[in-house]
């Protein structure tokens, strides 16, 4: 029997016990046989690994609903949170006593003031405000039953500038807007505060990187000794993409999507932004 046939018979379980023993003995004595055997082992291992990876990828693609170390909100809570955030924004806006320019759309002004708290990429409040503002604009056409939206409507009445046609244009709010705001299950992609379901991997094996991160192929790698269960990832959706923040040991850190190389974690020091993130976290926990 040729070497290759013998090796295949071995891997296919076609050798008797005696033949198997003899084969194993020959392996030590015949380097050519051993080389071919090693090659076949690698090939068969490769086949198995490929299949295993395929099955795992399939399972990975299954939507579970709750994943990661971040929490998952239902839409009832989301709408309340959105309303609380909105009231906070508008109260802040009022306290800041910004100008109501007729040439500017009120929500933009509000979001601009918010942008000073949150990095410009974040349209968290902008989307929220726009959505709720627009509801008030087309209140005649739609029934708005959410308390947050009702509160916003009252505020909107005080600001006639809100009723600008420009408000409607960027937003593709369907007639069934309520269901869009409150999907039946899970998070819709258009959620402003979408709790991150990004895959996270903690790697404490690299001494050189003790407090670093990397975002690669949609996965977040944290390098260092991160205590399990003590970190959270907040994800904000904006028109320019996702914005991620890490909350760990009472500090917030910016996670840039562009960090494809291992990057040191930088603590956020801006008090207004920290305050905003704290409020969002507290609302989520409640």
């Amino acid at each position: 029997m040729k070497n290759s046939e013998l090796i295949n018979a071995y891997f296919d379980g076609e050798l008797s016990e005696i033949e198997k023993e003899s084969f194993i003995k020959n392996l030590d004595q015949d380097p050519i046989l051993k080389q071919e055997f090693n090659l076949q082992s690698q090939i068969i291992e490769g086949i198995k690994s490929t299949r295993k990876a395929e099955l795992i990828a399939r399972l990975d693609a299954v939507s579970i609903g709750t994943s990661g170390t971040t929490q998952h909100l239902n839409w009832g809570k989301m709408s309340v949170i959105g309303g609380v955030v909105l009231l906070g924004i508008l109260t802040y806006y009022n306290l800041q006593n910004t100008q109501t320019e007729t040439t500017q759309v009120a929500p933009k002004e509000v979001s601009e003031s918010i942008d000073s708290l949150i990095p410009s990429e974040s349209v968290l409040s902008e989307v929220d405000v726009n959505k709720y503002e627009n509801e008030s604009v087309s209140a005649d056409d739609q029934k708005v039953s959410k308390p947050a939206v009702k509160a916003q409507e009252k505020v909107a009445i005080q600001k006639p500038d809100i009723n600008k046609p420009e408000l409607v244009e960027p937003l593709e709010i369907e007639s069934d807007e309520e269901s869009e705001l409150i999907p039946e299950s899970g998070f819709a992609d258009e959620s402003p505060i979408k709790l991150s379901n990004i895959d996270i991997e903690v790697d404490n094996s690299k001494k050189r990187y003790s407090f670093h991160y990397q975002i690669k192929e949609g996965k977040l790698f944290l390098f260092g000794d991160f205590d399990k269960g003590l970190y959270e990832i907040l994800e904000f959706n904006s028109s320019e993409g996702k914005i991620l923040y890490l909350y760990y040991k009472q500090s917030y850190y910016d996670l840039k999507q562009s960090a494809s190389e291992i990057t040191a974690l930088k603590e956020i020091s801006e008090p207004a932004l920290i305050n905003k993130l704290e409020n969002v976290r507290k609302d989520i926990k409640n």
Partner: protein
Amino acid sequence: MNEKDLFDKICKGDERALEVLYKKYYRMMTQMVIKNSGSEQEAKDIYQEALVVFWQKSVSGNLVLTSKISTYIYSICQNLWRKELDRKKRLSSEERDSPEFPTHDQEERAKLINECINQMGDTCRKVLMYYYFDGLSMQDIADKLGFANTNTAKTKKYKCKQKLDELVKTLYSEKDFLD
């Protein structure tokens, strides 16, 4: 879908049934790992690993289930996690400084083989994966892939394996992996 139906489907190689199972017991299984000092990612990995083991046993016809599926999978998860915890314990701080990574050559070979497998046609890939990983019989492979009979499946497997061997040997030669 009740447990028996689910198990029957999995034994027949229905991957969608595996997905249903995965989702059904995700919380239960991952909680076990998390409550035993595992991270969510580790819990997910362990559960997926356990399900793959369960899959292999089931489709190969080597599993006679005498308990609930969840009980069985739970015990696989426990074993896997225990092994992982033991492995972590064994790693001393010195070992942690220089962990055992596969050599560059080993990685390159594995990558090459993976490339060769992916270069093959869909049917060849499936025949080889069903045979070597899923442990399906030639009859099962013939049924699944629509071959006329077991001899056709056997011939197909032989030819596909030959083709893969040649592909790998060619690439290995190019990379000087063969002595």
